[in-house]
């Protein structure tokens, strides 16, 4: 199973090696004239460094995507436009990448595409503190923008792929979910004006920048094109190149820099006086749904989301041996109905209000909280937290957890000192949420890599429902030994804009060097996509590329027909590689069809009841 499946006979490369070499040399020579020798690369070994990609195995069966014709590193929008015009002239495709994390950054066909690496466009052009927005180039990371924004009392949304990833890429061309969404939105919602090198090479400036010369709004006096250039999921490079964009910033009431002690990988972040980091736990899925809504509606949280127990075990530890030990703690396994929260405030009074509001919500749902609030009320919350967990767990298992739990505290005492040990867990939570720098620990270290599923932008209770459907499907693959046994439920996600919409994606961790695992996980993705349609879970975050658009489009107002028209109108030559978007050159692949049939024939049994106990099981009907 491949995602994009451009590997059938219809796509077979009929060129001879000599013709390819000649084309490569022509492209190289012309690119050098535009960019200079230093910024063009065609050495096969160097091209491989760009081919090696996260989840490439899903597309190619190896860790390498197909090689590009050449790598080009332009310095500015004009040079990008020159490269794009050159590709149009030579009849080759191009594909742009910013920080370049994921196989969708690479071409799917070998030796046909110029990879435009936007690494040299790495400036924060401006932070307008008064009007609360920043203008960035493609290689500015979430971490860099946040670092500078915080100095000015501002903060920025960071996508779940981590703070090392490009701000612009997710704002203009990708999705951009993240646990700060409750207060800072979703990447596409934060996009203001932008600079766009269109598929033919024309540079346009969109939004207020095109009209007023500044970037304070994403829409100009004419029709908005934000929906055109990105829609829900972004065009993933299939509609030209974005060389600059403005994003909204949000208030930050914390210090200019995190107060850090210790060293890597065990930093201790002192939580500021008016900030709270907490794990809140309730007794069941229904309460969890209510918890999310109530916290969102109360507008008290800056960060709000769900980390499943296995993800927590990854983030809390520095290696797999330690993670395996932590993961054995029975108490941890009962943190299914839990949300992680960070609340910030500018004053003691404001924080007191927020803590009180959170307490009322959590207690109202029969829950408890583990937090950095060591007041008598905070300690009561912690006791309630233990009570909820022990009620679910049973006294014996609860007591069995204690030695390991105390072991964790002792570890922290060794690491950070006895005085800090009680704050260590919340400190880790605080720094991991705030700076989005520990996500890799949770998902990559266990087995090597992960893929994700479900994750539609839907109502919070529907997201929970979708996560439960995904977990049941995942169980089948866990039982086959092709993904890590994380208990099935490894749903990660959060709520956006006060909880008006949300997402939960079902992570699946596996060893990417195991060919069978890579192949089967792709089936897991296909099967969860089918389930999204069947169970009305929304369009999955794996609705990427023509095969999966074919799956979702009929259920979603035939959106693919619109994106197809956008693509062919703006890019009649199909110069921008749109394999991951909507590809006019896509042809059904016999192998893909066969694998889809296999998936359809062997679908997991899923209960759609959302209660913890489960309900009668039914077999999903075939999609078509």
């Amino acid at each position, binding site marked *: 199973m491949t995602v994009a499946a451009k590997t059938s006979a219809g796509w077979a490369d009929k060129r001879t090696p000599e013709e390819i070499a000649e084309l490569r040399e022509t492209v190289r020579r012309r690119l050098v004239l535009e960019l200079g020798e230093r910024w063009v690369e065609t*050495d096969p070994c160097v091209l491989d460094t760009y081919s090696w990609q*996260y989840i490439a195995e899903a597309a190619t069966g190896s860790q390498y995507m197909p090689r590009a014709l050449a790598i080009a590193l332009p310095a500015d929008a004009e040079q990008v436009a020159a490269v794009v015009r050159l590709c149009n002239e030579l009849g080759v495709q191009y594909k742009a990448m910013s920080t370049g994390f994921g196989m969708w950054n690479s071409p799917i066909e070998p030796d046909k595409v110029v990879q435009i690496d936007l690494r040299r466009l790495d400036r924060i052009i401006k932070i307008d503190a008064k009007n609360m927005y920043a203008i960035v180039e493609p290689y500015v990371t979430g971490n860099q923008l946040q670092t500078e924004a915080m100095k000015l009392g501002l903060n920025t949304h960071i996508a779940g792929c981590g703070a090392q990833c490009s701000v612009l890429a997710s704002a203009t061309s990708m999705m951009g979910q993240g646990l700060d969404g409750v207060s800072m939105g979703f990447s596409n919602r934060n996009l203001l004006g932008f600079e766009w090198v269109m598929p033919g090479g024309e540079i346009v400036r969109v939004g207020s920048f095109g009209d007023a010369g500044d970037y304070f709004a994403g829409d100009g006096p004419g029709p908005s094109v934000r929906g055109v250039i990105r829609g829900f999921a972004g065009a993933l490079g299939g509609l030209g190149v974005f060389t600059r964009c403005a994003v909204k910033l949000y208030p930050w009431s914390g210090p200019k820099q995190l107060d850090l002690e210790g060293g890597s990988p065990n930093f201790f972040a002192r939580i500021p006086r008016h900030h709270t980091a907490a794990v809140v736990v309730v007794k069941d899925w229904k309460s969890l749904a209510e918890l999310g809504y109530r916290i969102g509606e109360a507008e008290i949280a800056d960060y709000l989301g769900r980390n499943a127990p296995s993800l927590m075990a990854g983030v809390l530890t520095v*290696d797999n041996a330690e993670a395996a030990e932590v993961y054995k703690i029975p108490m941890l396994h009962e943190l299914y109905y839990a949300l992680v929260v960070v609340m910030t405030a500018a004053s003691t009074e404001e924080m007191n209000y927020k803590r009180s509001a959170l307490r009322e919500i959590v207690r109202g749902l029969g829950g408890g909280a583990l937090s950095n609030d060591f007041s008598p009320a905070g300690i009561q919350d912690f006791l309630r937290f233990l009570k909820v967990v022990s009620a679910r767990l049973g006294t014996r298992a609860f007591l069995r957890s204690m030695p390991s739990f105390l072991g964790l505290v002792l570890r922290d005492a060794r690491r950070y000192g006895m005085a800090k040990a009680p704050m260590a867990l919340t400190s880790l939570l605080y720094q991991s949420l705030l700076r989005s720098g520990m996500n890799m620990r949770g998902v990559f*270290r266990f087995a090597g890599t992960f893929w994700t599923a479900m994750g539609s932008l839907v109502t919070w209770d529907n997201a929970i429902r979708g996560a439960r459907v995904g977990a049941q499907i995942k169980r089948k693959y866990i039982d086959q*030994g092709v993904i890590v*046994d994380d208990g099935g439920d490894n749903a990660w996600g959060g709520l956006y804009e006060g909880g008006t919409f949300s997402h939960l994606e079902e992570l699946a961790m596996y060893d*990417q*060097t195991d060919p069978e695992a890579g192949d089967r996980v792709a089936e897991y993705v296909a099967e969860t996509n089918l389930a999204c349609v069947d169970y009305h879970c929304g369009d999955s975050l794996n609705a990427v590329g023509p095969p999966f658009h074919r799956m979702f489009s009929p259920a979603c107002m035939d959106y693919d027909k619109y994106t197809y028209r956008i693509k062919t109108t703006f890019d009649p030559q199909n110069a921008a590689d749109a394999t991951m978007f909507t590809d006019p050159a896509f042809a059904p692949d016999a192998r893909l069809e066969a694998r889809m049939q296999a998936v359809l024939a062997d679908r997991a049994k899923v209960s759609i009841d959302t209660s913890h106990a489960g309900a009668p099981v039914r077999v999903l009907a075939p999609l078509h």
Partner: protein
Amino acid sequence: MTLTNNYQSMAELKSLAGKCPRCSLCKFPPLVAVRDAGFSSICPAYEVNKMHASSGGGMLVMGMSLLEGRSEVTDRVRRIAQECTACGGCDIACKFSSDIEVLEVIFQLRAHIYKTAGAAPAHEAVLQSMRARLHPLVTASGALGDWLKDVPAEQSSTPDYLLWVGPHYALLPELRTTLTHALKLLAAGGVRYAVLGASEPYTGRAALEIGDRELFASFARRAAAAVAASSAKGVVCLSAEDYATFRALLPRFSAVGKPVLHVVELYDQLIRDGKLKPAKPVARALAWHDPSYLGRLSEPWTSWSGERVKTLGQMILETPPRPVNRGDHGCYDAPRRVLSRVPGLRTLEFFRRREYAFDSGECGQALAVAPGFALSTAQHRLAEARAVGADAIVTECPQSASMLRAAASSSDGTTTVQMLTDVLFESVLA
């Protein structure tokens, strides 16, 4: 199958390298610790050359591509691999989240390139110097023991320490004053030491950095044997490079069997014991630069053998757990403590410090083949010093100091670079 962490080939690293998800963490300090967007890279090669191939992850993929026969060593590949300081920044950045041995792959990549295509001319000159003159300093004149004619060494017949001088201090005239100061400080502190003079072998790191692992091994064994033959109870290194090599590399070939200190650690001990008393105020604001050799590259190596198994379906576990160097056990506190004891001195911190300090271009034998790159790296570090408000830098690695001075003189020339030994001498004995 039993595995070890004394990696002898790229193939032994394949399963670890295969876990690289290309997340780019190797390009930045641990994200939680980033303090300034303008100084938020950890990799000099990627900072200067921009291509993904120049990053830790890129080097790792080049290694895998060559190992799998997907590509061949070309001049371009060799150039990229050598235009890297092998400072280990990528390695510790990656290991904030993972256990991939990026630096080991970089060394194996260099070994593969050396075996396949030989060394670049400038690197070949270094290797020739090692073979013929037993040290890597191509342009240095004189013999390794000549310094004893100029600098009085008050050696003890019952030494506590073998003072390991290293070829830089032994041969370079510009370090003669610092060497003199170091010996005087040790004498003032009542340290009983011996030196090997002309018979002190070079520890061999340059050969490893170039890719000639056999030559490195022969030097490393000789150094370990010299330590074993000494009656001293421990070793004190003047050079950060030797210190890093003794602690992190030599144990792979031969047990050193004696504690190894850097001279800064000894100063720290002497001050704490009241044997050295910094008294004279040094009214300056200095930014302490953590040299890679003194810092993350000196983290002791621990031998491991064990198995890699899968549990919970696909979770990879090593039994017993493999020790993973994450940079936090380098020498960071001792120099800071020493400087804090100098009256009047205000020590500033770089944005990037300790295990995630940015290299100053001195490591990895990059200077020999890519002086422009090495200088750019040092200039970037210099700019960071200015950004934290320092017009002077203090460090304790002769190669670092040399690179930073070159960067200073190539810019406005106003930033001064001092060795910690000289600053301490000024306060204690001047």
